[in-house]
């Protein structure tokens, strides 16, 4: 058995959106004491896109761009300077349903826009175009280990030269006939700006054997039916000041995260520490 590989990063910025909890403050409040916002928009409205594009954007693109922009703003880092990793289990399930359904009924009627939006890196493409970013971006999937593998790739980029990297993870609701085999409900997205050094919670990851997960926390329970709920153990820990989180990293592997919360320089972190006791 090989030695574990310690990997570290500081979380410089966080973005979050899911149905009923449209930002990280709302998610944190919900995780700490069950508070829900009085009203929440039905879908994200990413300011990076022009108003007409914002309305037309597929759900996957809308949620990814919303959380990515907020995470960059939270980190105080210009989006165009960041290489990025986009992690999604299934991509945009509504578009996959559209493609398959149209092919079965009238294949020459395929919309060219829907076709180029069907690529797994559609959100990554819209992000780099909207942000004017010429840095590298990637889009990946690893089924129920998608978030852990996306996080590992972000950590690899830090380890091999990038001072900072944007990680975005999201999944959409399944639709149509595809929904009878691929189960995912609602819209969920989160983004982290990870830096090699700086202020913020410090992550320390270890890849290990086994796949035993902890019971779901408040956020993981709230969005449990979305395919990207696999990332929520980390976000529950970040919200509540928890010091560890376990993510599935493959059929026989887990990514164990230790989280050292920053000294309470910011009120938000101080609140999280207090709430955790």
């Amino acid at each position, binding site marked *: 058995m090989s030695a574990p590989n310690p990997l570290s990063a500081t979380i410089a910025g966080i973005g979050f959106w899911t149905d009923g909890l449209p930002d990280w403050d709302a998610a944190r409040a919900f995780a700490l004491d069950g508070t829900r916002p009085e009203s929440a928009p039905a879908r994200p409205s990413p300011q990076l896109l022009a108003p007409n594009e914002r309305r037309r954007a597929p759900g996957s693109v809308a949620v990814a761009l919303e959380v990515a922009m907020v995470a960059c703003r939270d980190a105080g880092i210009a989006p165009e300077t960041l290489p990025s990793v986009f992690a999604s289990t299934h991509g945009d399930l509504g578009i996959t349903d559209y493609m398959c359904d149209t092919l079965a009924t009238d294949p020459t009627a395929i919309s*060219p826009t829907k076709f180029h939006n069907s690529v*797994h890196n559609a959100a990554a493409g819209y992000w780099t175009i909207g942000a004017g970013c010429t*840095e590298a971006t990637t889009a990946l999937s690893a089924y129920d280990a998608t978030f852990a593998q996306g996080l590992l790739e972000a950590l690899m980029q830090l380890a091999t030269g990038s001072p900072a990297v944007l990680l975005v993870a999201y999944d959409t609701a399944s639709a149509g006939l*595809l929904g009878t085999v691929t189960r995912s409900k609602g819209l969920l997205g989160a983004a982290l700006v990870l830096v090699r050094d700086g202020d913020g919670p410090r992550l320390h990851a270890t890849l290990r054997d086994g796949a035993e997960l902890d019971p779901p926390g408040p956020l993981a329970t709230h969005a449990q039916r979305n395919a990207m709920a696999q990332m929520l153990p980390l976000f529950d820990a970040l919200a509540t000041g928890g010091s560890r989180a376990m993510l599935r990293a493959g059929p026989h592997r887990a990514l164990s995260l230790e989280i050292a919360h920053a000294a309470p320089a910011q009120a938000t972190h101080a609140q999280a520490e207090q709430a955790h006791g």
Partner: protein
Amino acid sequence: MPEPLSPPPMPALAIRAFTATTALGRGNAAQAAALRERRGGLRRNDFGPTPLPTWIGRVEGVEDAPLPSALSRWECRNNRLAWLALQQNGVLAALETLVAKHGADRIALVVGTSTSSIGASEEGYARAETDADGVHRFPDDLARPIVHTPHSLGDFLQHATGLRGPCITVATACSSSAKVFAQAARMIEAGLVDAALVGGVDTLCGSVLFGFNALGLVSSERCRPFDATRDGLSLGEAGGFAVLERASEGDSGLQLRGYGESSDAHHMSAPHPEGLGATLAMRGALDRAGIDAAEVGYLNLHGTSTPANDSVEARAVDALFPATLHAGSTKGWTGHTLGAAGIVESVFALLALETGLLPGILDSTVRDPACGPQIRFDNAEADIRFAMNNSFGFGGNNCSLVFGKVAA
């Protein structure tokens, strides 16, 4: 946060085995023979019930090659092609050696695809059934969630090979299986793993045939990359792999020497008009390899034969490389194999290093005025030290790779 102007050189990675299976046949000998003899693999489109009038690069015999029964959970055209490609050119034997040396947890599996096994999802819709309660559903043989998700390919290969390191499916459209080399290189450089199986597989399906047709990018004739009269691409399918390991002191043979990745920040389905992203990717790969552009002997171009791509790419190449470079597109032989293009054309670059065969371009006759002296229609022979591959995808996603050869 300022980025360094150019990335530092990367540690070289030894290539312990490599292979491609395309419309030219199964394995490297079939590829090399067809490239040398200028024998293309395109045929009139005979894929699916209502074939569009175009030409395709279809792999023979996939229909007659079911997966072994132990792997039947992953049964679909894309995973069949993955399995066929995996059996060629000693890839499995090289993996066995590396597993014995490093352990299965220390070997990553990073594979690229554009559409993975969406062909199975399309078939599920085409053959949908209605049950007694009037509920629409997939036929039982296709009600397998794993083949209806992008990681179908990575998950299949993980079970087929028994590798236990990080396993990822990269899906950045037509740059997918070039970017797998970069991701694996990072994991090896950072010490997360000691070796990696990389590659990519994409198969013909309705989504890409009718999708590219809807974008007006499909030719009704055989594609003609860099020809002034080109009018679109020919689609193809392929699979291929490479086995990478951290190079040891005194290693000879083929190596991955550099990678460059960039974004166009321009348009979802059209290249940057000045080739900004393409140039950044090629420069990045040269910088990581620590070599000058003049040292590259062969460049396998993205060269899709769409009107927009080829002139932009030709100008970017002309701005970066001296006239001595031999650059060509092999899409006329295989068709555009999309998410598999990165690995297939990396294999062609490796074959150029190994055999000295530098492919030109098939079926093109009239040079586009944008072509510099680097773009060669004829094949050539030369003993070269470095070869490159360009792969560019939708979303403006670009990757260039540099391969090298160390004499024994």
